[in-house]
């Protein structure tokens, strides 16, 4: 038995700790199979100022496993969804906790949680690449999935003018081969005229 509280108690704990900063709180259940044994999730929306405190509070309950930080373009704001799980390792006791943090596009800063959960760097780097948030204090801010020559200020998951422009995906055959790449180690043979048929008389 690992779980020390129910999903509702966990949700209440965040309400009592952060008061009206917590919004859109939902406790969900979903069961599959014949027995419909439920998997339980808690969804909480919090402002970015309390993100670190909220993760710290969750760590004080049980050290969570960070699934992933998902992100969605939501008009004027970017939704960042921190998918965390606590109480795993028991018998169907896990609680999935999702912190939704809304970041305005005009000021897309969010603090890093990698000081608390070191494994978060990977997914935070991806969010910088893909949706253009700026993770403050990230120990490694290099690009992760996008190539080095990917244009600046284009973010594939954005739905606004910073998304992938049609010119990057339409009629790619027109683009031809890139010209700014290093020369291959072996030069391609020049295209020659078709050679005349070889003399094969001496073989016969």
């Amino acid at each position, binding site marked *: 038995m690992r779980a020390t509280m129910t999903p509702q108690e966990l949700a209440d704990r965040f309400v009592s700790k952060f008061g009206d900063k917590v919004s859109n709180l939902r406790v969900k259940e979903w069961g*599959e199979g014949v027995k419909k044994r439920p998997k339980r999730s808690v969804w909480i929306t919090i402002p970015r100022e309390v993100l670190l405190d909220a993760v710290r509070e969750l760590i004080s309950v049980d050290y969570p496993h960070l699934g992933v930080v998902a992100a969605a373009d939501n008009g004027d704001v970017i939704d960042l969804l921190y998918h965390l799980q606590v109480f795993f390792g028991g018998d169907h006791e896990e609680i999935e906790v999702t912190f939704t943090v809304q970041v305005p596009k005009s000021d897309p800063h969010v603090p890093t949680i990698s000081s608390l959960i070191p494994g978060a760097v990977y997914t935070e780097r991806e969010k910088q690449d893909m949706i253009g948030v700026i993770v403050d204090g990230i120990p490694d801010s290099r690009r992760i999935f996008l*190539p080095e020559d990917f244009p600046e200020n284009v973010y594939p998951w954005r739905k606004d003018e910073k998304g992938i422009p049609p010119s990057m995906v339409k009629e790619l055959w027109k683009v031809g081969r890139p010209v700014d790449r290093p020369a291959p180690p072996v030069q391609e043979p020049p295209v020659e005229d078709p050679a005349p048929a070889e003399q094969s008389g001496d073989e016969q």
Partner: protein
Amino acid sequence: MSEKKAPYELPIGPIHPALKEPINFTFTMNGEVVEAVDFAPGRAHRGIEWMGMRRNPVQIVHLCDRICGICGVSHALAFSQAVEQIGGVEVPDRAYYVRTIIAEFERIQSHLLWAGVAAHELGFDTLFYLAWQVREESLDLIEYITGNRINYGIIQIGGTRRDITPDMVPRIEQGLKYYEDLFEKMVNLFLNDKTIAMRCRNSGILTKKRALELGTVGPTSRASGLRMDVRKDSPYAAYGDVDFDIILPDVYGNEATGDVYDRIVVRLFEIPQSISIIRQCLAQMPEGPVLAEEKYAKLLLNLKKAAGEAFGRVEAPRGEDLHYVRMNGKQEPPEMWKVKASTYSNQMAWVEILRGEQIADIPIIVASIDPCMSCTDRVAVVTPQGDEGVLTKEYLHRLSVEKTRRMQE
């Protein structure tokens, strides 16, 4: 000859003859010892999420099949799980069982594939051939059930596209028996082999604490003693109905040290676990249809109206897959679709487990989290006199045999 002193940098990849998948490693080496590791993924990034946000959910299910050639069913399962939650789709009970059986066959074939790769990375190619030969049986069974060896295309939102009929059970049982009889031999070959034990014990150690902090998943985290298995923690499909336990290295009487050897133990012992789960599913399967809505147009029409957000989590052979989906009730394509594959979570562990290890152990340690890559079969050497030379595979093989002999003394 340059004056460069240790530590020096050794790049491997992104394209390397021995890499199974493209990734770029930069090792900072001091002699034969790895001091630091850096890696750059993304060489195979295909923008699948971007594509998905421009396609309807039924199309995405089949796109999911193609995210990974090995975990063909896990991604489709996670995605349909999320969509079913948003749309409130009532999946027939029998479909949950078909999904579970396919997912477990996938685990068997994936773990055997990995076992073969691990043997190959250790230079034990006889074992590699054996593992891949016996893996064929699971692929044949998957083909028998779904019609395809890879990219099964069996998952559909609201159920599965094919049923497992009673007349198929004897053939499936024959396959399960085959693996059951084989298990002892595999354990003996992998775990009682002196060289494998020497190479793998106490190498590439990931402690339980670091496994948790780095967010690792699947056999990689379980080998470090972390009790974590989505099938048990947040049951999906029919896993809530069947009886099984999380596999940790102690099944083989090992204290979990989190080394490569423990990762072999966990993966090998998950094979009989899968056999047991499949047997239980076959015995308990309820009667009935396997698909909630057979007309795709109607299914899509209903999903178009669905609004909300949800995520699906599945224990793929390599660990947790997570799909986050958001739909807005106005359009067919999801507003947001985020895919998190298992290696995504496990890659951070490389930096940890490769540090301080021997250069010769890089391939097996890299492969031990099950993404598979890296091996050196021929290197160019520049001697202090400036002569260039080439070391042949035979010469390197002799060196490696001599080193093994020295270690055995």
